């Protein structure tokens, strides 16, 4: 570690405090928020942020890394090892159908959205099974109800969804290929009778 780093550190926190926060993030199953850590350990926001930053640097060249996802900070194995590490897992990671992924993508990008609106865009009915799976995985939640006849549920994505996809916010989702709605329909009348 660079020398100047050690110097600034000395003013902000002790190495014991840093080690404690490190251990705290490591042993918890779920990502830890700064709020939560601040609440349980007598450290200032500034100290915590400095510790997190230092830890991220410490693990820069290791097999695991400290990342921030939607619900906080967590350690995870580097993605580059995922292929090699797959041998350790007997069970294959679940695969998701196109129907499920399209439904999930629609909610992620167009939330709040009703099931009817999803069906309109996809052009097919959304099976109850898919909605159930998405709700049970805690990737979707019902945000409220649309004030139209039938009061259909409005769906949105959860923090668990972002955590699962390693995102810290919805803004981190890959940009949608924008619909060029201004594009003129150069619909030259084709010779229909030709066919």
């Amino acid at each position, binding site marked *: 570690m660079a020398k100047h780093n050690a110097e600034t550190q000395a003013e902000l926190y002790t190495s014991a405090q840093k080690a404690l926060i490190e251990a705290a993030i490591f042993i918890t199953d779920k990502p830890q928020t700064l709020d939560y850590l601040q609440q349980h350990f007598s450290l200032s926001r500034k100290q915590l942020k400095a510790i997190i930053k230092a830890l991220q640097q410490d693990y820069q060249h290791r097999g*695991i890394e400290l990342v921030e996802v939607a619900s906080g900070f967590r350690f995870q194995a580097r993605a580059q090892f995922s292929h090699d590490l797959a041998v350790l897992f007997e069970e294959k*990671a679940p695969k998701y159908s196109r129907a499920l*992924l*399209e439904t999930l993508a629609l909610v992620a990008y167009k939330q709040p959205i009703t099931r009817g609106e999803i069906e309109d865009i996809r052009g097919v009915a959304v099976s109850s099974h898919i909605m159930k799976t998405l709700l049970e995985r805690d990737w979707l939640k019902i945000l409220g109800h649309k004030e139209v006849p039938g009061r259909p549920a409005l769906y949105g994505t959860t923090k668990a969804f972002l955590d699962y*996809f390693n995102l810290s916010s919805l803004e981190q989702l890959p940009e949608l290929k924008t619909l060029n709605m201004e594009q003129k329909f*150069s*619909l030259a009348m084709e010779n229909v009778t030709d*066919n």
Partner: protein
Amino acid sequence: MTTDTNNTMNKKMQGEMQQQALPFAFIHGEGIVEKPQDLFIPPDALEVILENFEGPLDLLLYLIRKQKLDIIDLPIAQITQQYMNYIELMTDLKLALAAEYLVMAAILAEIKSRLLLPKLKTEDDEEDPRAELVRRLQEYEVIKQAAQTLDQIPRLERDLHTVNVLFADNFTQTTTPPEVDLSDLVNALKGLLKRCEAFEHHHIQGEVLSTRERMTKVLEQLTAASQAKQPFVEFSCLFDFKEGKAGVVVTFLAILELVKESLIECIQSEVLGQIQLTLSTQGDY
């Protein structure tokens, strides 16, 4: 379109395949019954492919992309023709055909027929009949791609693994004590005093009466014994154990009260021996 039309079409497709009949009469007179000719995939493999379509929009997109056509210049007649071929094939293969596919067939046929009609108005703002379908196809394609991208994002279980770190052996779980409000305490006291009141009330009335009553009963027993020329009654004979602890206490209190008032006497002739009770004889003993 309903499953009824689906069945009707199914039947017609099977029965009148070779006839130049009217199986598609219900879609604006468009009768396409010939085998698909411009399919790029052998029919055997088709079944697998078809099952992978996520609905009519997906199928249309596939047809458009397959021939490197632009959605914007949607050649409706050509696409309709191909779409119908696929629908027919799906029916032939007895794939469960979702109603949405038939709805789309109707939409395509309608657009086609509108395009066929001579243009009566030449106003510029008249919308192309294909516009709505093109918009839907574009919208769907965006989502289709977004879903594919989403599937490629590194995700837990498949690409990312969180760490498992345990506690050292000396770890012990602690519990947070429950919170108590001062009003909880006051309410507890109120409840307690209310109960006390009820209890005391019952206690005083019941106890005094029953002790008095028991004193009379004990005296009666001793008098009866004395009249039967048995001046002494054994202490234990005065208790009815069926009455339980309370009864024993009341009887004992009654005896003490009687002794105190010098109405009866207790005699114990030897250490640890039986206690005998007798009516007080005012020193006449």
